[in-house]
């Protein structure tokens, strides 16, 4: 019976990890949003050509995709907390969790498709 003696069976680290990721992704999103807002303000009045040109370089596509990945992780933790707080029925909560993850993955893939469609 030595399997369980050394293993951490409670979820404290899992909670701490998500708590930390929530903060780190928040900082990433804050920096990206500020950067994008500045870039839009600097490039002058809103025009299709200028707006599109922002997303043409591959590094910008990758940065944007990384920001959206951070967004998805951030949203997952936040929305999961909401389901955990307000949805008492375990079966319904599990369904909502699965739906949230699938939906965020869908949005992530969709963003990649949009970004790499810009030429």
């Amino acid at each position, binding site marked *: 019976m030595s399997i369980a003696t050394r293993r951490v069976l409670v979820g404290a680290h899992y909670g701490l990890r998500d708590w930390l990721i929530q*903060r780190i992704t*928040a*900082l990433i999103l*804050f920096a990206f*949003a500020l950067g994008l807002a500045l870039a839009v303000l600097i490039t002058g009045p809103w025009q*299709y*050509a200028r*707006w*599109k040109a922002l*997303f043409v370089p591959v590094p910008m596509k990758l940065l944007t995709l990384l920001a959206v990945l951070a967004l998805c992780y951030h*949203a997952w933790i*936040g*929305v999961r907390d*909401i389901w955990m707080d307000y949805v008492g029925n375990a079966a319904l909560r599990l369904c909502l969790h699965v739906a949230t993850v699938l939906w965020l993955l869908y*949005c992530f893939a*969709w*963003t990649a498709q*949009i970004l790499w*469609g*810009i030429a």
Partner: protein
Amino acid sequence: MTKPSSTPPRRAQRIRNVGIADLRNYRLPIPGVVSILHRVSGLLMFLALPVVLCLFERSVRSAQDYESLVRCAQGWVFRLVLLALGWALLHHACAGVRFLLLDVHVGTERAAARFSSQLVLAVSLVLTALLALALFGVL
């Protein structure tokens, strides 16, 4: 293995949850208002994610799509939706900065926390008002 102590100490007072019926009589302190609005604005942006992605897709697809989007943005319903999302983003960001500062033990005293929550509400509402002026063509 040590045996856990026989019975947990009895609480002097039972934990009391606020029920739905009590909500009308419960005066939420201002830091609590900021906190629940942080949650509401986050959920709002999560639900609006497909709308935002749709708008982004159309804004970068072609010049024609971009122009049709600009025409769409003349309508006041569209502008109100943008304004609501703008408020959600601004409030979520301002309150988020406050929570990050609280995490590193900045402003945890009662008076300071109360002041910073008022500041979050004020700053996000002023920025939203500026956005409204820009959206509705006054600025």
